[in-house]
């Protein structure tokens, strides 16, 4: 199981990935180093592959910048669970193949340092505080997640 990193409401894309890097940090390893930089400066040092971000309402509000999803993903984050998501951030998660789960119960119950893992196929989040189930994604969305992200999905269907 991964470790839970717990944050509050209205976490915005500027603290997830500062705007000053948006057109210069292009490589995955470099993006990862700036993940959550202005929210939790220790995040990149502490995060391990398989860890999970848990947050309050409107997670990822603000800019459309995809690095707000990619930076934590490249840093090892396996899923994001929140009371609710800002809509572009949610779309960016799906398109980047990072599961984003709207699970208010789990988001309110889980605390920093708890353990959790997401089983997408079974539709369940298993945690040190019990299991939380979630409904299936719409077929359009599931197809993208199944492919591993939108790039992979498009490659399967449109590559010439």
């Amino acid at each position, binding site marked *: 199981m991964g470790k839970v990193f717990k944050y509050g409401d*209205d976490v*915005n*894309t*500027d*603290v997830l990935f*500062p*705007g*000053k890097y*948006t*057109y*210069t940090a*292009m490589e995955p390893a470099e993006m990862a180093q700036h993940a959550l930089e*202005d929210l939790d400066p220790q995040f990149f040092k502490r995060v391990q592959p398989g860890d999970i971000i848990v947050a309050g*309402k*409107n997670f990822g*509000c*603000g*800019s*459309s*910048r*995809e690095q707000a*999803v990619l930076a934590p993903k490249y840093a090892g984050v396996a899923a994001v669970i929140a009371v*609710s998501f*800002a*809509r*572009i951030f949610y*779309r*960016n998660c799906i*398109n*980047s193949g990072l599961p984003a789960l709207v699970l208010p119960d789990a988001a309110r119950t889980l605390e920093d340092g708890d353990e959790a893992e997401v089983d997408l196929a079974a539709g369940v989040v298993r945690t040190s505080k019990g299991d939380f189930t979630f409904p299936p994604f*719409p077929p*359009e*969305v599931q197809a993208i997640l199944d492919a591993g*992200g*939108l*790039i992979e999905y*498009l*490659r399967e269907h*449109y*590559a*010439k």
Partner: protein
Amino acid sequence: MGKTFSEKVFSAKAGREVRAGEIVTLEPDYILTHDNSAAILKKLPAIGVTRLKYPERAVIVLDHVTPAADSKHAANHKAIREFVAAQGIKHFYDVGFGVCHQVMVEEGFAYPGRLILGSDSHTPTAGAVGAFAAGIGRTETAGVWVTGGLWLRCPETVRLELTGRFQPHVSAKDLALAIIGRIGADGALYYAVEYAGEATEALDIADRMVLCNLAAEMGAKNGYFPPDTVTAQFLGEPDGKHAALHSDEDAEYVQKLGFDLSVLDAMVAAPHTVDNVKPVGELKGKHIDQALIGTCTNGRIEDIRTAAKVLTGRRVAASVRLLIFPASMKVYRQALEEGLVAPLVDAAAVWMNPGCGPCLGAHEGALAPGEVCLSTANRNFKGRMGDPNSEIYLASPATVAASAIAGKIASPREYF
């Protein structure tokens, strides 16, 4: 049961009846990108595709870090120019033309009933003239380039009913901040925001652009002003032809909220969220280091006129630098013709080039640790203007101009 505007646009594009909550794949009329085109174009080889499906639907505007702040940004711009030439993209606007959301309206891409997608969160600005315009991410923008379409969920609609008229010192920016302060940064999450009510007839396209731009800060998918005589005049087209693009009388709304413009005072959003909104009086006297008038929110000729009205014959405080970023070169040209440039120079304002400026913290006025900026932009998130220990307050052009004179946050009331 009647349909909302969103349901009508989605149904027309899908070629079948679509209701709120349904997910459908739609082809936008235009797909907007900016400096981030450099990152998006790199996704084409990863997908295994070399050509855009509809190059004539791509609109690319360089505005975010323009002119290039360093060689990395310059290399991005160069890659975009080469891509534009190779793909035969006609709708390309290079450094200095304007902020992308201004260009969409100014150059006529925004039009009643059109579906516009953009890889920028403030794409909803185009709803001011009755388009359905929503922001999307980079990867899915590459998907639109390649396939022509994208999956979209037809949003439910929140109707904001506006009544009354502003006091002279109050404007659309104050109303937008008041709305966000009341409903919160997620108050319209996933929803369409439709502006309605008798007050809309007195709001010009610039006002409507402010209100649609800031719909993004309510969490909305899009903002929308039903086309009317104001729209028709702006487009230079006879009134009435866009009637079919209005929500039906019996359309279903998730929420209806009323706002009385006549009781509003000038408003300010304090750090570090846009919904931390207070009447200007509560923040009066707060020291500022930098003042900014411009960006996609408030860089139009109407905003420059307001700045000139307040600042002509007066001076920016010695402790403050006031930066003015016109939203486009056309706006700047208009300001020149109207004689608004010299009085603002005399007032010690600094005219900058059309573009996003320091709004995203990359250049042209980034803040030092501990500094405070009062800005007409749309975001005051921690660190956004370059340093996590700086502070951003958001307000109207009138409030920013009045505060620049005072050297601290001040009400613009005495100037109107």
